[in-house]
Every structure is written in C-alpha cells, then in structure tokens.
C-alpha cells in the first residue's frame, strides 16, 4: 500500500488544499467549481465529471523493460497457455524502428480508452461499453463472443479467451468464449488506487506512465499534458483516446 501512496498524492492534495484554495479563488464563497473529489463512496455511481487517462512518456520507457506487462499479467491472473497466438495480452511492449532514420523506441500499448470507441459502436449486445468516467470495459455477462469488437479495434487491444480457465481472481473475473481487454484496473481505480502497470513503472523509478483524471485541470496528468506536446496513436481516426503518448 505504501508503494502507491505517492502516486495518489496528487489526487489527495487536490481533495484537500488545492481544491479549497482554488474554489476560494474562483466563484463565490461556498460555490465550488469542482466537486471536491473525495474518494468516491462505494455506493455512488461513477460520473462523467471524471475522465481517467494515461500519459506514457516513451523517452522514459526503457527498451527491454517489461515490468508494466508483468504487473498487469500478475494483477489479472493472465497466465499463458504456451500458445502466444491465442494467449491474452492486455498490455504489450512494442518496439519501433524508423525505417528512414533508424531511430528506435519502445512503448507499452494497451486499450486506449477512446472517447468514441469503435468496439462499443459495433458490439451487438452492448457488452462493450464505456463507463461514465471514460473507462472502456467488456460486460462479460452479456458478451456472446462474436469478436466484432476485435475486428473494429484499431489498436488490437483485445483478446479472446480461447480455453477454459481455472482459479481466476475475484477482482478479475474472466472466462472462455468472451472478449477482454485492459480495464484501466477499474477495481483499483474504484478503490482510489492507480493501475498495476503504472504502479510497477513507478516502482522501478522509470516514471514513464502517469495515470489520472484528465478532466481535472490540477491533476498531475493534466498539467503534464498541458505543458508538453503529446499525441494519440491513429489520431486520424479522431477517437480522442484516453491514453496519450509523449515522444512518438
């Protein structure tokens, strides 16, 4: 629990001092521009006031480092079956080499949690959906395993479960015949924690991944996004991804 404490500080700080100061500065006393974002109570639904996002700095992402991937696999019990073509991968490391210049880069690729996700558009049953806070999920209870979302996803972010599974973790239910993908560690986010990949990256002191509320101008991620240029993968599709990259 200590390992993620500092990651959450920016949020906590915002809950306390910053927000009050800001509110005092802005409108009238007692009128808050932003609802003080206390850790959301368990019985309260997520709202669109928050939009979770991630900023990945490829300059800090170490070539050959796989910590985010291992952390994700461990967190969700994604054990392979020795069949790389059908084994699930929610996050993967991608190495790039510019054909023209020879410049190389490494970056993690995961569900981009689009504002306009093609997977949600095409899903016949509505099993693919976007939560109010921008997290794109699969409701595996109503997923029929048609795989149309996998056809539609521009990022190949989704995996189909090709076999029976045993000993799943309570917070990461997954089973044969349904499609799955990165959940932004929704079970952690709902408990006011950061996703496992970000936690692992920070623990290694790479700090290449930042997670936070991009609707909150004072969040660490918003500040960094404002300060530095970043881009979306396949920005041409105009999906307004929740995951942004620096250095590509």
């Amino acid at each position, binding site marked *: 629990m200590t390992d993620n404490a500092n990651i959450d500080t920016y949020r906590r700080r915002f809950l306390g001092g910053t927000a009050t100061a800001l509110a005092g500065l802005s409108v009238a006393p007692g009128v808050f521009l932003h609802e003080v974002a206390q850790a959301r109570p368990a019985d309260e639904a997520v709202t669109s006031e928050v939009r979770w996002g991630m900023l990945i700095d490829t300059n800090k992402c170490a070539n050959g480092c796989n910590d985010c991937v291992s952390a994700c696999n461990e967190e969700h019990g994604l054990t392979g079956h020795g069949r790389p073509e059908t084994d699930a991968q929610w996050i993967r490391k991608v190495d790039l080499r510019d054909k023209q210049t020879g410049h190389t880069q490494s970056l993690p690729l995961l569900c981009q949690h689009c504002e306009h996700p093609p997977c949600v558009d095409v899903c016949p*049953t509505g099993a693919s959906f976007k939560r109010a806070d921008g997290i794109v999920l699969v409701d595996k209870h109503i997923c029929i395993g048609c795989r149309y979302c996998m056809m539609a996803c*521009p990022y190949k972010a989704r995996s189909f479960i090709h076999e029976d599974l045993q000993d799943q973790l309570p917070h990461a239910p997954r089973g044969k015949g349904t499609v799955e993908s990165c959940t932004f560690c929704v079970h952690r986010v709902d408990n006011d924690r950061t996703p496992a990949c970000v936690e692992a990256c920070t623990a290694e002191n790479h700090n290449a991944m930042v997670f936070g509320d991009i609707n909150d101008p004072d969040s660490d991620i918003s500040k960094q996004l404002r300060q530095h240029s970043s881009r979306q993968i396949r920005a041409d599709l105009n999906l307004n991804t929740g995951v942004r990259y620096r250095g590509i």
Partner: protein
Amino acid sequence: MKQQIQFREIDGGMRFYSLLGFIGLFVLAGLGAAYFMEHNGHHVTGMTNQIVWGTPHVFAVFLIVAASGALNVASISSVFGKTPYKPLARLSGLLAIALLVGGLAVLVLDLGRPDRLIVAMTYYNFKSIFAWNIILYIGFIAVVAVYLWMMMERKMNAYTRPAGLTAFIWRLILTTGTGSIFGFLVAREAYDAALMAPMFIIMSFSFGLAIFILVLMAACKWSDRPLGDLILYRLKNLLGVFIAAVLYFVVVYHLTNLYITEHHGVERFILLDGGIYTNLFWFVQILLGSLVPLALLYHPATGKSRGWIGIASLLVIIGGLAQMYIIIIGGQAYPLELFPGMEVTSSFFDSGINAYAPSLPEVVLGVGGIAIALAAVVVGIRVLRFLPVSLADDQVDPHHAGKTAEATA
C-alpha cells in the same frame, strides 16, 4: 390462354431418404465440430487473437449473402413481372430461407458463447450494424415466409406482388447490412469502404443464382421432372451478367485502393505478394470463379450443355468462397497500421502478416452449414408444393412453343 402451373411435393421413396441421410451426415459432422470447438475453446481452431473471424465466417457470410441472392428469381417474377420465372418463385423463396438458416447456424455455432443466443436477442445496441443484421436476418425469414404463403395459398395470390416487393426491398437492405459489417470497420485497411455494401449485393445476385441453378437442376433431375432449356438458358445468361457485374465491382474496389497511397500496402498484399491470398485472388476468384464460368456460359458449345452450365455454377460458388476468404481472412491477415513508417516488433504479432490455417473442425462446421441449408430444401420440397411438376418449355412460356429455345434474359 394462360396455363395454370402445377406444383407437387416430391416423392418420398428410397431416393429421398438416402439423399436426406447423406446430407444428414454432414449436418451431424458440422454439429459435432461445433461441439468440439465449444467444448475445448477456440484454441483448437485456426483462429487467434489476430485472425478473429476464421473459416466458419467465410461459409456463414457466403451463405447469408447467397440467401438474399437466391430470392432474386422470385423477385424477378413477382416484382418485375417476368412470367417465365413464376414457376421458380416458390423454390427461390424456400432456398433463400434455407441458405440463411444454414449461414446463421454456422455463425451462431462459432460464437464464443453460443449458449447466450438469447442475450443476442434481448440486448440490443442499435448503433451496431451487427445488431441490425440480427433483426434483418430474422425479419427476412418472416417476410419471405409471408411471401411464400401469399404465393402458395390461392386465396392470398392477389397479395403476392406487394409481399414480393417487400421481400425484395428487405433483401436489398439485408445485404447492405451484411456488406456494411465490413464497410463500417474503420480500423482495417482492407475494409472501411462504402463500396462494400453494393458489392455484397451484386455478389449475392451471383452466388445466390449459381446455387439456385444447381439446386434446380438437381431437384428436377432426381424427381424426374422436365426442365426445359428455355428457363435454364435464361437463368444461365443472367448468371453471366451477374458474374461480370461482380468483376466490375472488384475492379473498381482495387482501382480505388491502388490510387490511395495509404492502401498500397494492403493492395500489394492481396494482388502481388500475399501468398495464399494472392493465389486465391488471381487463380480461384478471378480465373476459376469469374472468367472461366463466363466463357463456359457464353461459349456456343458449353453454354448449351447442362453439364457445363452446372460446372460453371459450381465454379462461381467456389470463386465466391475464395472471394469471401480473401475479404474476411485476408483483410485480417494484413496487419493494422499503427505506426506508419515504422518497423514494429512486439510479443503480440504487431509486425508482418498474421498467419492463419483453417482447421478441420472449422471447415466441417462450414460445410455443415451448407448441409443444413440443403437438408431444409430437400425436406421443404418433400412436404410442401414448392417444385413445379414440369418446367418444360411449353409450360414455362406457352407463347414460346414455336420459337427457338435460345432465350435471352
């Protein structure tokens, strides 16, 4: 003097039961394959996280497309008022429903969770073209069933034309929907084209008619009912027109892509160095599935031979399956272009062409779908009056008795 067309069920003798039993074996094998796949999970198939729609989808989409095309013969008679086609209208409707049921069976049995079919019927995302297709497919069966009823119940005959018109419009929308399943996929280079919808419609004309010709010839032959040259030649000439139209759309599709630099990669893949996909395209889809049947159908010698007409129809079907294979599997085999100008390596097959090899259960399931459709036709013409007693020239067109049998469509 207008003659009344006579329809009668086929006889239920030894021939009927052995044919049904033979087809039934393929149906059983298909169901067994589906059970094997669902029981073990899809890792026993050729599909992967890269190629998510495999051989069953090739068969399923082919059958669904062909289903709407098989209805064309009925539409020509009821909507466009061509009387020579009237005796064929019932069989056309039956074949349309049967092919759709066969295709849907394959599609459903290849789902990750076929046990949740009820979910697909009760939860709808109306932005999904797939969800619309579910409604269009079920509606198609209902609309064609009503249309058949209007045709077969004498008291209802007056309503045949409006029912036929409804079915015709419905089938156009249906195939538009099927084509749009691919046309709406913005992410993949090979799809994402509005042309997909009209191309699928014209493909349906061709595939559906090819299957219809074969089924008609087989049904007449095995039930010892005369099938005159007049109607057969009309059908085969029409098939030739449809083959040429499909070719036209294929050319336009590739020309457009060849003009757009962004799409050069995928075009190069399909047309030049895609290995199996390139071979399938040039040798099976274009040569065997289009040019050869065109030549066979229009050549003065082969065009008058029933054997060759049958072979030409069969080639159109094989070419159509190849075309579906290239569209569905070739389209996924070509990798997603996430980082233009970059060489990509990852543990998740982001680089290079994705490999796919059809597995036996997938093929058996696909063939099972065809068998389901054929079994439905065989049972249908046995229990109800779908097949005319005679399709001899004088029955098809009484005014034609004196003229030559060389008809044009």
